[in-house]
């Protein structure tokens, strides 16, 4: 279970009530949750707080009952997909996925098997050596999903739990409807197969329906 307890954050150097974002929600484990809301309401900010790219002013974030607020992004049980620039364009597909295992890539048998498995699960076999620029938008997001998948299947060095929290920051919004539906289907399969907990930000109400997800709507603090 992911608990966001009275977390506040502000981009302003001098936070006051009117420029401070407040979050308080609980996300069920091994499920898909969709976050909706107007532009600028703080949907992406919430994901960045969970991932550790931003530090809350107050409150706490708990995963499986333990606070993750003091951990560095790499130590958190999190894999995140962004709307764009998820992959390094100068690296091939294999290396981009392998970075999910460890930035200091070592080509061990275990890691090779793990990557092959995720490649096969996402249906992107046969393109290991292709450069990112030669892939379609849908293929690129599948590669990013594959990286999130391999990442979710290993444990952070000092944690017993795996990185089973998948944060999706509108990663499929630029795709055509057919490819998008396909990618959403892949997310559903990943969650069901690997027992992940997915939290997805979207503008499209149809996404929640397609994912059979719980929906949270962020509202302006009055």
């Amino acid at each position, binding site marked *: 279970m992911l608990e966001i307890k009275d977390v506040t954050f502000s981009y302003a150097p001098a936070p006051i009530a009117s420029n401070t974002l407040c979050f308080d929600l609980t996300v069920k484990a091994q499920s898909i949750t969709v976050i909706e809301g107007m532009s600028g309401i703080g949907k992406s900010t919430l994901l960045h707080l969970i991932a550790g*790219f931003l530090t809350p002013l107050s409150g706490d974030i708990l995963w499986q009952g333990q606070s993750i607020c003091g951990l560095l992004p*790499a130590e958190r049980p999190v894999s995140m997909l962004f709307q*764009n620039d998820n992959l390094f364009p100068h690296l091939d597909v294999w290396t981009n996925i392998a970075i999910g295992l460890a930035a200091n890539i070592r080509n061990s048998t275990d890691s090779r098997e793990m990557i092959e498995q995720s490649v096969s699960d996402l249906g992107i076999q046969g393109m290991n050596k292709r450069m990112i620029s030669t892939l379609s938008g849908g293929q690129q997001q599948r590669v990013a999903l594959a990286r999130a998948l391999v990442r979710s299947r290993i444990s952070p060095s000092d944690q017993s739990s795996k990185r089973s929290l998948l944060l999706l920051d509108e990663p499929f919004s630029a795709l055509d409807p057919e490819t998008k539906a396909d990618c959403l289907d892949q997310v559903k399969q990943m969650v069901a197969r690997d027992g992940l907990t997915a939290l997805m930000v979207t503008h499209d109400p149809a996404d929640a329906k397609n994912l059979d997800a719980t929906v949270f709507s962020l509202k302006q603090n009055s």
Partner: protein
Amino acid sequence: MANHSYIYHYAHGFRFLPLSGLVIVGALCGGFVLAFTALLQAAAPLDAPQSFYELLTSDARIGFALQSALLQAALSTIGSVMVAVPVSIVMARRYHWFGMAFLRLMTGLAFVIPTTVAASGLLAVWGRQGVINSMLIAISDMTPLPLLELPSFFGLKAVVLAHIFFNAPLMIRIFLPRILSVPENHWRLARMTGMTPRDQFRYIEWPAIRAMITPMMVLVFLFCFSSFSLVLMLGGGPAVTTLEVEIYAAIRIAYDFHLAVLLTMMQIAVAVIMLLIMLCHPMLRQTMPQAVTGIKPPSIHILSSRYNLLKIIDIICVIFLFSLLILPIIALFFRGLTGDLFIVLAEPVFWQALQNSLLIALTTACCVSILAMMLAETRYQLGLINSPTRWQVVARLLLESSVMITLVIPSIVMGTAMFILLRSYADIFAIAPYLVLTANILMGLPVSYRLISGKWVLSRQQDQHLRLAYGMNRRTSLRFLIMPVMGRDIGLIFGMVAAMSMGDLGVIALFSSSDFKTLPWLLYEQAGRYRTDEASATAVLLMGVTIMVFFMGSLIGHLLSRAPSMAATHMISHHKAG
């Protein structure tokens, strides 16, 4: 039908510009042909039936100058890249550190500081009477240690260090924005996957700058290969030289015009090779505009704060850059202001040199700004035609290459060509100011044209339909559409060219006389006579004036770019009507 918009456009102004632009190109090409013919005639006298190759290999100085120029250029290039790569990375990841804004400003000022001033600054730190040596001698005096003393600074190491002083900042101005423009999600990915600084270098920073390493090395090599004033001031004799220095020595010291012509021909051959390399490498053409544009801050912190050892390494890097770029300027200021400043100011020759320098610099800047605008407009007009005829394609090619060639031909070579061409018709030293002015204009034009032409053409294309739809005339179009967009760029080239011209110690070396001196030449004379304190004072004054003319360009740019507003007038008239 294809040319309809072209004809309609012409009916609404700027008709004279393509023609005048082509006249400039014609004049440039004609000048080159004339000068080249004169050089060929002088290089191959009728009574010497040798082949051109034999003529070129006839003097041992030519081979030695080539060898020496290649060695110092290679070492300078390697040194510059070895400084620029780590420093760019440190400046990116420590962007918000205290003092970094000043360091970034200093990397930009390296474009403005005259070479003579930089040489004086380096001498103020590393010379016999420099800060370091003075400190070593003081330590020796206070302790029983044997006398510690730096060896003579002049020679290869001085030239290489001076080239690094100028070219490492140029590289940093190219590499740093590329690192800062890495998508922020890549930095987030790096943090999420726990990349170490080494991984970050491997996957993010190095790929960001890798594409620019080779073009920048080529560019810096070309700059160093054709270096003149730094080698002249710091080379310390004939052991370290370049073709340009040898040309100068042949004309002004040995009075060997034949050797000067041979060296010039050799330099032109090298320039043509350089031009071909530049034309083949599209990245090279973009470097200058990139280097002078501002650096945008990163939107996120690009490194986790937990690496303390790295922080120490980064501090060492920043101190190194500080000592490379800023220490010479501080030492020079200290010596210049505490030394013979008032003696220099009391000399009439200083004021005469200042007047000459200012007159030449400001006239050059005005001419170059106007010519660059005319050429950019010509390029736009030539590019406007949907189906260009053969002559129009040729005209466009001529425009690009004639402007480019002055970028690779050093001013000394231009000066020698002028010397050979005009010596039979006029008293060279009587017309020296005009020759220096012409050479400076030719030197400033390519960079200025490169800086504004892209944006000029783009902005003219963007407002083309609006202009035609509202039937804007030339004056309105210039006032409301062109200047608000281009004003700052025009101011920038004005300031840059004025500063470059102010500090130039190139062609003046050939044409200076007791009647005609510029500030850089006066500084060179003082340094050559070992009047170090006077030279330092002149260097400080020269730097002050150079920075002043550079900022004058910024002011002009600011005034030009102020978008005229009719709102106030409209409101008053509306109120009255009401």
